[in-house]
Every structure is written in C-alpha cells, then in structure tokens.
C-alpha cells in the first residue's frame, strides 16, 4: 500500500489568531488534506464535531470515511486504531476524556507501544491518540485527571503536551507524521483561553525539543500544558514580591524528553521548581527531579521543589484548591531559596 500524498490545495502562508481548539482542528484539517491515510475517529467526533469541537467541520469536509463516530468502546477505538496503523493508515483516535481511556489501556501499553519492538521492526504503529486532559473545567473526578505519567513510563510511546495554539498545531502535525505511536494530550483548561497567532498551512514543531517560555537567572520552573500560564503568573508574582528572575521551561514533549535544555537551565540557575497538576506521588515531575538529582545535583543551591496536585482523587467542589495556582507555585519558588 502506498501513501497517496496530495499537495495541499492552497499553499497557505501567514498567521491567524486561533484558540488552541481551533489550532488543533486546523492541524487535523491540514494533514487530512495533505495525506489521505489520515483518518479521525472516536465517540461523537462526526456530526457533533467532538464534545469540545476539536473535530468540527471535518466530517463535512472529508466525509464519513475519514471522520467517523464509533460505538462507545475505547477498547474498540484503540484496538481498531492499532489495526489501521498496522495496515498503513495514519489513524488519529480521539478519546473523549483522558479519564475514559482505561477500557482501552491494554491496546496502548501492550500493543501500540510494543508493536515495533516485539516484531523486530516488521510491524509499526504510527498512530496518534488525542485526548483532552487535566482540570480547570469543574469536571470533577472523571473529567479532570492528568495521567500522563502512566504513558511516560511505557517505553514505545511518545507523549506530547502543547501549551500554546501554535505549538498545538505544530506538534500535532509532527505527531501525525511520526512513525511511532504518540499520546497527544490536550490541556482542556486552556482550549479556549490560549489564543495566539498560529501559522497557516504547513507548520511542524519537532518532537523532543523543549521551549524556553521565559528566560531568567534565579530559578528554573519546569512545566507543561495548562501549568505553563500558571507558572507565568507565578513568575510575575515572584518577581514582584521577591525580585526573583524565573526561567520557565515548557517541556512540550515529555517523551522523548529534552534533557539537554532542562539541564542547561538548571545549571544556569541552580534552583528548580517542578510543576504539574497530577497527583504528586509518582507524577512525571518526580522523574524530572530524579534526572536533575542524578545529573546536576552539584549545581543545585536548594531543594528541588515540586508543586503538584494532592495525592487524592480529583475533587469537584474543591478543584480550585487542588490544582496548583500561581500563589502556590510562587510559594514553591520561595522554598528553593530555603536551604
């Protein structure tokens, strides 16, 4: 089977202001125009256009064969996705909320992640699993969780989390073109709040490269997804209240990780705060601490502080206290100065 790569009809240039939702939608449209192996499917992605609207208009533009609703089975969505990828498609499987991925978890960790390895490279699984994740919409228990750590601990998967509309587009296109399975996790809290210039047409952001979201000299803040804007505000607070100059590293891809950028920043500042919304224990932020404690401990001038969700299931009414906010992060920053 050969990929039927069409040249994108319009060679668009320039930029346009988009929300992250629109940027994600634009990325899929762009790649569906560009490569007819790309198909999008999941619960309610067709006529409804997805519960958040990320697939709006794709059913209308590309028809039911390329954007279709599925029965209510994440096991089926992901198993079928693996099969499509094996057969040579570029499936994009949408999981309505990351909290609902577990009925299909086996197909990800046992199948997609291991296909290339276990077949000695004979069979591959170039598939993107897109899913909104994280808190901030008062979704309670099952519409709010951040379980990126499960996927980061599963060799064979790549894990991508954008924090800006432009990155969302560029990283999603890179993920679709990637030859390996990619978990593309979308911080739903900023689906509509993140709004910015996004390049039109082809726009690729290479996987595995972190972004310095703010340069600084005193403390390094490591974060991703919806925590990036929270950390920006925290950095403002830290500057205002204590004159701290924070450097913010937006990881963008958790696997593969841009260790170099992280370590360079840490070596420069000598202080680190790791911020994530998942429960603190066993979160991916712990991995970041561990890497630094193994490879750059001699540069540190304070404890590696983690600001994260608490070790409880995600609450409904108290969401605002559960999730790290600028003040909690700012307090974390100060802790790195207490030796």
């Amino acid at each position, binding site marked *: 089977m050969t990929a039927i790569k069409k040249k994108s009809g319009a060679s668009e240039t320039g930029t346009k202001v988009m929300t992250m939702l629109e940027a994600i939608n634009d990325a899929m449209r762009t790649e569906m125009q560009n490569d007819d192996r790309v198909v999008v499917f999941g*619960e*309610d992605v*067709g*006529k*409804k*256009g997805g*519960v958040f609207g990320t697939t709006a208009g794709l059913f209308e533009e590309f028809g039911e064969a390329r954007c279709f*609703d*599925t*029965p*209510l*089975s994440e*096991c*089926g969505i992901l198993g079928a996705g693996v099969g499509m990828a094996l057969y040579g498609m570029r499936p994009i499987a949408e999981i309505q909320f990351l*909290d*609902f991925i*577990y*009925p299909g978890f086996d197909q990800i960790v046992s199948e997609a992640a291991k296909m290339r390895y276990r077949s000695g490279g004979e069979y591959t699984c170039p598939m993107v699993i897109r899913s909104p994740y994280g808190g901030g919409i*008062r*979704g*309670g*228990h*099952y*519409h709010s969780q951040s379980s990126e750590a499960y996927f980061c601990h599963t060799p064979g998967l790549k894990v991508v989390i954008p924090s800006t509309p432009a990155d969302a587009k560029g990283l999603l296109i890179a993920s679709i073109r990637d030859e390996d399975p990619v978990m593309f996790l979308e911080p739903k809290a900023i689906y509509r709040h993140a709004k910015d210039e996004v390049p039109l047409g082809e726009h690729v952001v290479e996987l595995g490269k972190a972004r310095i979201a703010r340069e600084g000299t005193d403390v390094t803040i490591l974060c991703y997804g919806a925590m990036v804007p929270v950390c920006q505000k925290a950095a403002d607070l830290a500057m205002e209240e204590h004159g701290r100059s924070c450097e913010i590293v937006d990881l963008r891809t958790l696997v593969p990780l841009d260790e170099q950028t992280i370590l360079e920043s840490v070596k420069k500042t000598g202080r680190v705060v790791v911020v994530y919304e998942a429960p*603190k*224990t066993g979160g991916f932020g712990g991995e970041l601490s561990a890497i630094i404690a193994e490879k750059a401990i001699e540069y540190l001038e304070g404890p590696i502080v983690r600001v994260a969700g*608490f*070790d*409880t*299931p995600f*609450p*409904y*009414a*108290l969401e*605002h*206290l*559960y999730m790290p*906010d600028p*003040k*909690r992060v*700012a*307090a974390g920053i100060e802790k790195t100065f207490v030796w």
Partner: protein
Amino acid sequence: MSLELMTILDKDGKAQKGKDPNLPPEELKKMYRLMVATRALDDRGLALQRQGRIGFYLQSTGQEASHIGAAYAMQQSDWLFPAYRQPGILLLRDVPYEKIIAEWFGNSGDTSKGRQMPVHYSFRQANFVSISSPIGTQLSQAAGAAMAAKARGDDTVFMTFCGDGGTSSNDFHAGLNFAAVYKSPVVFVCENNGWAISVASKNQTASESMAIKAEAYGMPGVRVDGNDILAVYRVCKEAIDRARRGEGPTLVETVTYRIASHSSSDDADRYRDKKEFEAWQKKDPIQRFKAYLKHKKLWNEAFEKECVEGAKDEIMAATKKAEALPPMGPESMFDDVYMNQTPGLKAQKKELHDLMLKGGVGADIGHFPL
C-alpha cells in the same frame, strides 16, 4: 429469543386484554406520583444549571417509566447499581429531595461531600451504589455483588442499569458473562433511549436489538416498551422474581427515548432530526399512564394538582434549604482517600493549611482548622 416488543398500554393508555397486572389503586397512584415528581425534579435541575447556580445537570425526561417501572418491584433491601439517568429510583427509595439537591450543589449536605459532579449520587441508606462517570463499570460490579450475595445465601436481588451506548462497554460483556456463568441474582436493564450523546443506537451495534445480546451469555433477554410503566414493571418483576428464585440473570431492554439533550453541556439539535424527537414527544410515558389512570377513574384534576404542585413545592423548599448549606471545608479534600489518612496526606493537608493561613492560596476561603 423473541424480539417482540412487550407492551401493555396502547397509545391511548388502554391496557391490552389480559395483560393488565391490575395493581392496587394506591400502587398505581404512587407510580404516577413518582413519575411526575421525577419530571419536576429534572426541570428544576436544568433550571438551576441554566441559572448558573449549579455547574452541570443531566435530565432523564422521557425515561421515567423505564427506570421507575424497572425498580418498582424490588424490595427495599435489594441493591441498585445505577447508571446516571435513573433519579426516580431515589424518590422510590424515599431519599429526601434536599439530599438529592445538595448533591448538585456539592456542599456539606451532599452525601458524597462535593467530590463528584452533579447527578453522581451515592445513597447507602437506599442501597443505591455510588454512580461513576465511566460507562458500564457498574455492570460487572453488580454481577460480583450478586455472586457474593448468592454465596452467602442472602436473598438480595441486584438491579443494574446501562444505556444503549453502555452495551458496547467491556463491563457489559464481562458483567453479563459472569452473572450468567455463576447464575447470579441480577437484572440488567438496558435503557435504549436511541442515542449515546450524538451516536444513534443503530450505529452503536448491528444487532437486531439490545435484548438479543442476552443470547451471547445464555440468559433470557426481553424487549419492552420503555414508555409503558406497566409493561416495564411486569417484565422486571418477572426478572426479579426469577433472580430471587435462584434462576439467574435476565437482560431487559427498555425501548425509550432521550427527550432532552444528552446533558446541560450538549445541544442535540446539532445532530438529531427534529421529526424523530417530535414523534417521541407524543409518546410521553407520563401522559400515557395518566390516560390509563383516567380509564381506571383514578385520576382527577385534584390528584394532578397534588402530584405536580406538591412535588414542585417540596422541590422548591428543598432547593432553598440545600443551597443554603455551607460548602465543604478544604480539609475535607484529604479525607476518605483511605480509611486512615496516610502520613503523606497529613503532610499535604498541613501544607495547604499553612499556605491558606498565610493568606495566599484560597484567600477567599480563609484558613481551616488542622
């Protein structure tokens, strides 16, 4: 296996010959009262959401006969493993309005302590097991609880619900299989309301019906008109009795319709044909049963008023009370993760406490006692 749709009431509310279960008048009136109250509760829930007073609501409008009829023949000691669209069962089991409504507000009156979104009830006093969002998980749990009851020699019967979408879940497959293999006392009720959010049930499965899926597990499957409370009652009563006699599980498909959008977050007009909706609106289960009561001379305007206005007034009063209850305190976030708070959780609670004390985080709330 018959795919025939079991019905008792025709569209004008007349019972077909020989099929009327002839329930005592008081039972019939109670059924009506429950349906009307459930509808009123639903209206209130949506209104509160639209007014921004609660964050989310999900209606069961049009499915009152389906779920109230199903659970009606149970004993109080029997257990329910519900999905999220059976609020009428709470009324059937005498859960006070105030408790139900406090759950919507997620405040200190909520038995779930504000931990879940609205409509995810848990009422142990009513043997009504905590609802979760992931579709289908209650089905295998109900099978397991029924296995346990059987092993202990208890005569508890279990009823569990799912939607048409829920038939595609892993737990549907596992739950029905386990229940049948161990001949456990459980009744599976699939409320086929035509839609799983925007996916029509004909796109959910290629099988002729949901009831026929029972064949795959070697249990009886029955299809019943879900807008006919007497038919649902009769079919489920038989299934409950069967279960209690030790003859194993049954799958009941109630054919009904989701009159409202999926939830307060959804707009069904974007994907659903108005005609289909309008046709079903005419089959309103409450109107149908009212006509039956009229035939039986059990209905009059005074009774209607008592049912409708009575429910509305009580719900209004309960809302007022529930809304006024204080919120859960921040310290409650760390409870019930485990029976005893771990040292780690204690430390995290103290961390939050200290942060709030400093006046930073959660400044609007103030601090909480440690």
